[in-house]
């Protein structure tokens, strides 16, 4: 794979860790936890109007008649548009992905000829209140002729029906590659272990739904758009590219946001329509998505089949891995990620994992169906790929008679750097160590004994493992390493005030990750000041620092790098003046704990606050040719791809009468390099793992055969709650990156990436006495009960002699 050329913005200063690594309390919490956050629904603009959408009640139909006159005549209505009205301004959003075999689609802002999924917007109404807008929506006069709905990925791939006329064979994506002698390895295999794994369709279901407010000022031609997007700068660019608003006149504002998880890292038709509507009615317009809309029209996630096979030699070593992923992409590519996010990422990024497989082959396909478009959700593709790989690893352990720890230890990559068959280079990691650490945390012999004792009493507990390698700090280098050409960088601005306190702005909007806290820690250590003397503004507006989006576990790495570099520039200013005041050489001045001191002469020091005051008010303190600006903006991107690693072990108990899964305990090992703040890292682990528990057991966006979505409230769509969340034991290993500021690696996605495999492996371990192996999510009570009552067809591990 290509690597990026090294540039200036990839170097960060080396500093002494003071607050980095400490359990600094989140500075956001007093505000957010006491109800003082300001979310998009809290924003009220003078004169604002409210927007509601009419959405398709059917999966696939041709619109034969649409008449908005009754809607437009309704009380309080200012404007109503159908698809034809919107198409005058924008034909739609193109979705595609720069990999082999991608067929693009154009998603109209409002459906024109055909509706392709339940929840697709077909008309929009602007009215005095949301009530009036929804009243008017009920008056829409339209007819449609229902068309056959394509609701199954296998059927779509077989060409049964056409889900979207833009994709006549239903394929939105199809391709593959082979590295090494895969065919030979499978021919000569001692045994082959294989399985087809299914990750069901789910929603990221953020606590706060989506929302957009747009305000257009005709006199200055300025457009302000409030959106709880994870990618404000990208949205700004898209508003210019698609709608023609001059970029310099567009500001995207991101208020406090209650969770994104990738669902808010898209550009949606609603975000394009609101600015057009605001310009048309010359009033601010506001749309807050309701939960029903969020479950129907916010990007769906995960649904795909992954077929995976290991060729094993006589000792149980993996000699090759073959993977095929088939994604159910929904009706359109969801821009900007497309249907590729699931199947392509799954097969390209995950099949080798931490195993020393010398050959690999993959194929990927995504098909259109008459369902909501599938988009990004925390650990795109990584979840399904890791799920298939790690569940197959457990099956291989059973097939080779090894313990699940032993099989992994037998196959783990022995040393770094390691280049996988595709040419992806892994610089460092604690892959082997994480296996040993987890085994001792679990106390495996004691677990086996307890499991045997409980089985004798008719109780069924199981232990499931899942090890992960997570591409983190989404960067230009990381993109190129995986065969893409995306270019990323972020900026940060650091300013030191006369009293020695610092103000930091970053280009990333925050959705609850605690970025204001961790970035303050990074800035404090670089500047040598106390963390409480630093205030951080996350990107609340595109008028500040630039950012490529809060996605891909990149916040800590990329914003952290930019903060560190910008603070490094200011640091040098302080050192220069301190050296002058202390009559020492600049190189001998250290900035630590709020003081500038001379190396080897700790009594010779001056506070950083005094230095800052001098820079602002005392020219005599300046060295020659000094530029007093104590503010710097710097960019950052990583020089190389970087990977975190770790593992989870989950203990579950199955109730044979109800089929309920009880989660007893989670053991987690995380290596994300240098830990900036253990509290925040552990919060990410807990939240991600619980989302993984949800995606494995409680959640499914269920469709019937006609393509009707059956789960449109939290009554039917079951997100996990505290009562099903198990206690955690978390162990940190720190293998710093050589390329990032302070050695930090990203870790925002690993919980969800890896937890579902641990859940399924634990369930299958508990099911061992029943001779059943499950491979499809969700693990509903009914499936578990059937497995425990002998009602499931015996699905013993698929072990095939070649």
């Amino acid at each position: 794979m290509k690597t990026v050329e090294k540039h200036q913005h990839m170097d960060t200063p080396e500093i002494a860790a003071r607050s980095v690594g400490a359990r600094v309390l989140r500075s956001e919490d007093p505000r957010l936890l006491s109800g003082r956050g300001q979310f998009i629904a809290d924003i009220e603009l003078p004169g604002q109007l409210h927007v509601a959408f009419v959405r398709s009640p059917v999966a696939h139909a041709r619109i034969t008649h649409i008449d908005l006159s009754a809607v437009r005549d309704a009380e309080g209505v200012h404007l109503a548009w159908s698809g034809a009205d919107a198409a005058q301004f924008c034909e739609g959003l193109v979705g595609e992905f720069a990999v082999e075999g991608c067929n693009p689609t154009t998603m109209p802002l409002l459906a024109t000829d055909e509706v392709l999924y339940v929840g697709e917007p077909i008309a929009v109404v602007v009215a005095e209140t949301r009530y009036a807008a929804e009243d008017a929506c009920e008056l829409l006069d339209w007819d449609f002729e229902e068309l056959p709905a394509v609701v199954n990925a296998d059927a779509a791939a077989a060409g049964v029906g056409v889900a979207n006329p833009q994709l006549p064979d239903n394929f939105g994506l199809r391709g593959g590659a082979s590295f090494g002698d895969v065919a030979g390895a499978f021919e000569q295999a001692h045994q082959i272990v294989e399985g087809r794994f299914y990750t069901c369709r789910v929603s990221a279901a953020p606590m706060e739904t989506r929302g957009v407010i747009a305000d257009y000022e005709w006199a200055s031609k300025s457009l302000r758009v409030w959106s709880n997007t994870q990618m404000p700068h990208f949205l700004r660019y898209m508003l210019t590219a698609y709608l023609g608003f001059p970029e310099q006149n567009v500001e995207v504002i991101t208020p406090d946001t209650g969770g994104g998880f990738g669902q808010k890292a898209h550009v949606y038709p609603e975000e394009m329509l609101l600015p057009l509507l605001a310009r048309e009615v010359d009033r601010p317009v506001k749309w807050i998505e309701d939960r029903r809309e969020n479950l129907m029209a916010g990007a769906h996630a995960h649904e795909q089949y992954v077929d995976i096979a290991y060729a094993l030699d006589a000792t149980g070593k993996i000699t090759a891995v073959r993977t095929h992923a088939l994604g159910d992409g929904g009706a359109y590519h969801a821009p900007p990620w497309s249907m590729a996010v699931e199947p392509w990422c799954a097969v390209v990024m995950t099949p080798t994992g931490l195993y020393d497989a010398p050959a690999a082959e993959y194929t990927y396909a995504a098909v259109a169906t008459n369902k909501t478009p599938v988009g990004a959700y925390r650990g795109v593709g990584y979840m399904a790929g890791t799920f298939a790989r790690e569940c197959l690893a457990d099956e291989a352990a059973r097939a080779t008679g090894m313990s699940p720890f032993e099989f992994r230890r037998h196959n783990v990559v022995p040393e770094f750097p390691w280049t996988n068959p595709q040419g992806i280079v892994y610089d460092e990691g604690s892959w082997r160590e994480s296996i040993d650490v987890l085994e001792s945390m679990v106390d495996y012999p004691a677990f086996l004994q307890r499991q045997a004792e409980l089985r004798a009493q008719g109780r069924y507990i199981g232990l499931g493992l899942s090890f992960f390698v997570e591409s983190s700090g989404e960067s230009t280098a990381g993109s190129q390493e995986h065969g893409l050409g995306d270019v990323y960088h972020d900026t940060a601005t650091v300013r030191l005030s006369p009293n020695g306190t610092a103000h930091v702005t970053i280009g990333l909007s925050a959705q609850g990750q605690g970025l204001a806290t961790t970035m303050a820690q990074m800035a404090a250590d670089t500047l040598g000041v106390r963390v409480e003397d630093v205030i951080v503004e996350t990107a609340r507006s595109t008028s500040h620092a630039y950012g490529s989006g809060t996605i891909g576990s990149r916040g800590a790495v990329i914003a952290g790098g930019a903060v560190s570099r910008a603070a490094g520039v200011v640091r040098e200013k302080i050192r220069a003046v301190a050296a002058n005041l202390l009559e020492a050489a600049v190189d001998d001045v250290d900035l630590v704990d709020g003081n500038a001191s001379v190396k080897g002469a700790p009594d010779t020091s001056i506070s950083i606050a005094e230095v800052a005051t001098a820079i602002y008010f005392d020219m005599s303190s300046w060295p020659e040719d000094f530029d007093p600006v104590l503010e710097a903006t710097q960019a950052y991107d990583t020089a190389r791809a970087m990977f975190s690693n770790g593992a989870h072990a989950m203990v579950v108990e199955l109730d044979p009468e109800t089929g309920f899964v009880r989660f007893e305990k989670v053991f987690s090992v995380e290596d994300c390099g240098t830990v900036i703040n253990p509290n925040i890292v552990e919060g990410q682990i807990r939240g991600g793992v619980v989302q993984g528990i949800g995606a494995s057991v409680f959640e499914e966006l269920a469709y019937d055969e006609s393509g009707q979505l059956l789960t449109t409230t939290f009554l039917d769509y079951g997100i996990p709650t505290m009562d099903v969340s198990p206690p955690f034991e978390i162990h940190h290993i720190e293998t710093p990156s050589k390329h990032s500021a302070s050695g930090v690696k990203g870790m925002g996605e690993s919980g969800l990436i890896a937890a579902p495999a641990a859940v399924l492996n634990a369930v299958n371990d508990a099911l061992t006495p029943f001779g059943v192996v499950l491979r499809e999510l969700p693990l509903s009570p009914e499936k578990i009960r059937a497995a425990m009552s002998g009602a499931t067809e015996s699905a013993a591990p698929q072990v095939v002699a070649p």
Partner: protein
Amino acid sequence: MKAAKFKYVAPRSLEEALGHLGSDPDAKVLSGGQSLMPLLAMRLAAPSVLVDLQHVPGLNAIEDIDNAVRIGARVTHRAVEHSELVARRVPILSLAARHIAHPQIRSRGTFGGSTAHADPSGEWPTVLLAVGATMHLQGAAGRRDVHADDFFVGPFTSSMEPAEILTQVSVPATWDRWSFQEAAVKAGDYGLALVAAVASVENDTITDARVSVGAAVGSVTRLREVEQLLIGAAPDLNTAERAARVATDSVKPISDIHGSSDYRRNLVGSLVKRAIVELKNGA
């Protein structure tokens, strides 16, 4: 998800409330609103006027009367859950209350509101049917009492007239043994099946019993075959297992995305067994 237009009145007396109901066939009583308001928001219901009972006096008491505990329609689930009187005299209500949704909802939702709503997944309809409660109704023409057997007549349907108001429920305190079982995937979820069982026991023999099932069925239902089996039997594990088989064979469950009819049939059997075992252990 905003409700269609409706009028709202908050009468100060039962007579005034009945007057509103009598003068408008599309009027609907509002009590805690925890079921009704979501129906309005999703536009599954569009009443012309909501008659809010919050200022109507006399609906908020929990009283100890001869052989029963009488609970006012406006008493919240939380008040039932935490009532010392209820725990002492009709403990099955305390047990069931903990399963109703979440604490926030229990603090607003009311005993009478849930009973009148007659949700087949509701804890109160299932329990009130099992214990054989009496509903006290007030109409323009006067009061009438309806036994639970004649009150819950179908899914979300009671035998109340549109212009009647449920004012109190009398819960008999004469049963010796009680059990309430609910299988819900997560705390606060609607149950996949609920079973309520009560019995009178003399000399280790069940002399009378009532068993009801909710959630797994289209409307709350008594398991009469199970009751027949129990009467005259000892409250022991053997009886529980036989009762479970009879329940499994006789119940007619629904199918939906949360569980097929077969799954729920077996689940009801398991809950009946747990209930009878608990009857034995209770006392």
